[in-house]
């Protein structure tokens, strides 16, 4: 069965088990946030106003663009263009680095303001949700870097590119989760 599924989902099937498990965890987090907020609407709305929406928007554009670069990397390797694939992957990793820097700036700003996990329920969710996602960005960058290394080594070509697709699928999941997280935590009120 695994063999059959492996051929019809992009990348290795094992990554999809991982991706679905991650989506489940993030889904529970998001629903908990929405339900908790419905009992503390004023507190959540007031605290949310103090977030840096521009940083959140910038990070959304950065992550979406990085995901698009990875799509181009997959198209390149399928066409047998290893060097081009490596260039798109490098660009995607650099953008991942930019996301990390913007997010660290946000964490630092909040820490200077004296905000911690115990400040209130909103910040408990804001810090834990965004930090949990932040860790996934780091892991995604590690996976992309390994695939970039292998691409440069010549491990992938126009016929065998499962590794590139596997990394791409994970990276798009990280993007998908942020697409829900950004409006939920930064914008919806």
């Amino acid at each position, binding site marked *: 069965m695994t063999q059959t*599924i492996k051929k*019809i*989902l*992009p990348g290795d099937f094992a990554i*999809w088990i991982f*991706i*679905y498990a991650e*989506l*489940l965890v993030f*889904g529970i987090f*998001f*629903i908990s946030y*929405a*339900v908790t*907020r*419905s009992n503390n609407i004023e507190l959540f*709305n007031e605290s949310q*106003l103090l977030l840096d*929406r*521009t940083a959140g*928007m910038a990070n*959304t*554009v950065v992550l*979406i*663009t990085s*995901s*698009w670069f*990875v*799509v*181009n990397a*997959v*198209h390149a390797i399928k066409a047998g263009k290893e060097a081009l694939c490596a260039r798109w992957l490098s660009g995607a990793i650099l953008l991942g680095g930019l996301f990390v820097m913007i997010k660290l700036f946000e964490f630092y700003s909040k820490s200077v303001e004296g905000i911690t996990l115990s400040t209130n329920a909103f910040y408990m969710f804001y810090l834990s949700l965004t930090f949990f996602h932040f860790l996934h960005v780091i892991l995604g960058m590690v996976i992309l870097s390994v695939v970039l290394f292998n691409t440069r080594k010549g491990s992938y070509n126009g016929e065998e590119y499962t590794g590139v697709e596997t990394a*791409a*699928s994970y990276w*798009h*999941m990280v*993007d*998908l989760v942020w*697409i*829900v997280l*950004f*409006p*939920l935590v*930064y*914008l*919806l*009120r």
Partner: protein
Amino acid sequence: MSESVSAAIVWVVLVALTLMGYWVGQNGLSGTDAVTILLGAALIKGQLVIGYFMEMRHAKTRWRYVPTIWLTLVLLVMAFNY
């Protein structure tokens, strides 16, 4: 249309919807209209990523529906709580 051109168009739409959401947030809009716009934009963006970036529209298995079901359920729960 080539896959690369489709992906580029999807990227433009994703960025445009992000900027629209940011505008809603910066102007402090709230209430049913703002929630509908933001959740609607998230649904379209998520579905575009699932279909065109994750390439689920080419997958030939019912596993392809898992991310779409996830996205729809999460956004529905949000809609009921806002």
